[in-house]
């Protein structure tokens, strides 16, 4: 299949990548850019593991043709921390025991970021609604919700 060069802006950096039209965003991120923090799990948009933020909106990268996200701002889990300083959501997930196997964690954290960027003070119900598309088989979700609420508080107090 014909390849074309497309420009992707991932975690603030610009990449020109030859892609085939059929390629999904998760393939570009994982296979071309080696950003394996974005997880591929179900392949059909049922589990949320592959969630990245495109222009701030949570997006299932397994169901997104790469070409549709060219020139847009893509944030993956690798772009969230500032050097070794973790984002408050990452820190809260660690502090509250919200990570077990960790495979859903990147998608959970990015979906949470989109929520908290839009709603700095969500209720418990709003967190559950926002994260309902992200499956986790380990934690039973309770500590994830606790972590997101704690991160919200930390961010209101001056994190970011």
């Amino acid at each position: 299949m014909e390849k074309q060069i497309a420009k992707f802006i991932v975690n603030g950096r610009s990449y020109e990548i030859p892609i085939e039209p059929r390629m999904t965003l998760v393939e570009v991120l994982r296979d071309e850019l080696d950003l394996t923090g974005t997880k591929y799990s179900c392949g059909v948009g049922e589990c949320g593991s592959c969630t990245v933020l495109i222009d701030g909106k949570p997006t299932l990268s397994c169901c997104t043709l790469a070409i549709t996200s060219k020139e847009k701002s893509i944030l993956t889990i690798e772009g969230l921390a500032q050097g070794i300083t973790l984002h408050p959501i990452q820190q809260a997930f660690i502090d509250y025991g919200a990570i077990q196997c960790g495979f859903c964690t990147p998608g959970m954290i990015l979906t949470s970021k989109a929520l908290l960027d839009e709603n700095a003070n969500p209720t418990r119900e709003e967190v559950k609604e926002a994260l309902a598309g992200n499956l986790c088989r380990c934690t039973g979700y309770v500590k994830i919700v606790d972590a997101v609420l704690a991160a919200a508080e930390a961010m209101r107090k001056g994190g970011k």
Partner: protein
Amino acid sequence: MSQELSVVGKRLTQPDGVAKATGAARYTVDIKLPGMLIGKVLRSPYPHAKIIKIDKSKAEKLPGVEAVITLEDTPKIPFASSFRDLPMAPSGALQRPDQLIFADKARCVGDGIIAVAAINESIADEALELIEVEYEKLPAVFDPEEAMKPGAPKVHDYAERNIAVHVGYPLAEGDIEKGFQEADCVVEDTFFASKQIHCQLEPEACVASFDATGKVTCWSPCQLAHPCRRELAHIFNMPEGMVRVINPFVGGSFGGRLSISAEPICIALAMKTGKPVKLEYTREEDFTVLETRTPHKYSIKMGFTKDGTLIAMQVKVVTWSGGYLGRAQLAGGITLIWGMGHYRCPNRAGEADIVYTNTTMSGAMQGYGNPAIMWGVEQVVDMAAEKLGVDPLELRLKNIKKVGEISNMGLPIESTALDECIKAGADRIGWREKRGRKKEGVMRQGVGMATMTHCSGAHPLLLEHSNAFIKFNEDGSANLIVHPGSPGTHIWGTLSQIAAEELGIRAEDIHIVTGDTDITMFDLGSHASRSTHVTGNAVLMAARQAKGQLLERAAKTLGVSPDELEVKDRQVYVKAAPEKSISVAEVVRNAIYNFKGECLNISGKCSWESKWNCPPTTAGFAEVEVDTETGEVKVVKFVVAHDCGRAINPMTVEGQAQGGIMQGIGYALTEDFVINRDTGVVESDNFTTYKIPSMLEILDTEIILVERPDPKGPFGAKGVSEPCIVTIAPAIANAIYDAVGVRVKDMPITPEKLLKALKAKSDVN
């Protein structure tokens, strides 16, 4: 045990937290090697078929295809995905090796027939489509009871009536007939416990690569890495030392990673091509090819005297195995052991048939037979309580075992806090106020309970052998070299806390070195809730040895004897004069860079064979609301009290417990393995057709940790993980009965089944 603890018992964060929160953690699916090929498997579309002819010529000619292999290209050495020689001590039996790398005939839809390796995934997929296979369809059988009938299609030639194994209950006692004759109240019923699917989020995967010497390295999520290495060496007729298994991060297991799956085909492709190969399953393959929880159909009969004393118990099990045994072959026997080992009972008997069918293999999943059998046992106890006119809580308190009695696996119980768990849980759910409330209206509420006993490692059934090695670094930190499976159970943190407590340093001073069979000493791996207890004891003993060396060296410097010293928070000090001290780092440095002819890298090593299994116990309490018009069940609250001996890290124990509740709710209510009875195709093959709980199903949970330290556990700890799921489904079933007075005995309790039961009841009335 009134030790003062500085590290154990603290809610510490995990050593792998940052890697997982930043995306830096690499799982098997993330491994990429230079020149790596992509493997794909052609699978049988038929549940039972002879393979008449394979034409792979077109696929082989496709540019980018490097190998197309069939059974003829492999060593044809029979193996067991759950390991041939995982020893079962009482019978001495080995597991039957009934598998080959590729099927000699298709025994289930999805049986692997051919594999390809190509330079990328799309070429590999295209190659699969170019392969022509001529099958001769054979009659298939999906139901174990049908499979046992004379004349049923035979899945394996050797197994008459498809019965692979018939096992008796190894701990039978008394006279079962006499027991039932003497009983005043006998309750008997049959149940079906379902074929739950693990749904771990990381797809099954393997990467294999041979080096110039012929040694193979295999990146695999298998949580029993050392036994895995041994089985792979057997399959390829290689010495164990020429096989290296590396466990990267593991994206969930719940028992699914106990068996080998993708490894043999992946290695065969790497061997054929001489290049690294990655074989990653699709989600559909995960749902339809991997071993599931082993389902069982069983009958339970329990006999009580008037005063509620259990005096006779009999369990008969038909274990539903798939086209190959996998880990189902031990599941029948262990189900009897869990089922009849929980309550004190002088007359016990039981048997199990493990039966082949033309379906997906069955295997181990969290609790390994315990959730399946307690689903029935705990409902029968409630039925008996109703018949006897007693509170089911009191009936349980009367019959649970106490310290000194014999455990489910035949060992004396040295600690149990089940009585306290039952009382604490009942108190928190509001048992007395809520039980047997007046039922009116469409929405009916009810509460129910269940209890269980498990194990912390499976001695004496299995060889519970673990090793630990600890070496100090010049900065006073220590490397802990161990190899439990680590599929998200926080075991690295747990072992760090055990080591740090004993060594008198901080948990963050422990560097875990793990996941590589070339480096780590033998560990059976993680199963049977063993790692905290068995590997934990190995770590504790290794740390004790290292501490001995540390104190000896410090004693020389401080001019006292070692027994006058203690070490705490990185400092060795004289107990009687704490101001006289030296840092751990300084002691270690002086020993390594020793210019007095006494060089020593302070270290400790332990080969630990567990002779106990310190049964953990739990009591679970469910509060439900049933919509009598739709049959929908909402679990409003779940309280679970865990007798965990000592919570090494309460935060992670809670996390395990909360996860178990959610999986248990799925098991009880929504998760349904559906196979098409005409085609043998698994229809529940994605997250839409197989419904696991999402965040919307979060309920009010309360986790009570009852800490009564076990004398044999590391700092008193028992296993935690598997017990977390066992009581959930039966407690929900009992709560539904309290709410609406009907029971659905075959899982899951779907709205359709519940409505049918409600209608049947109203028709009778």
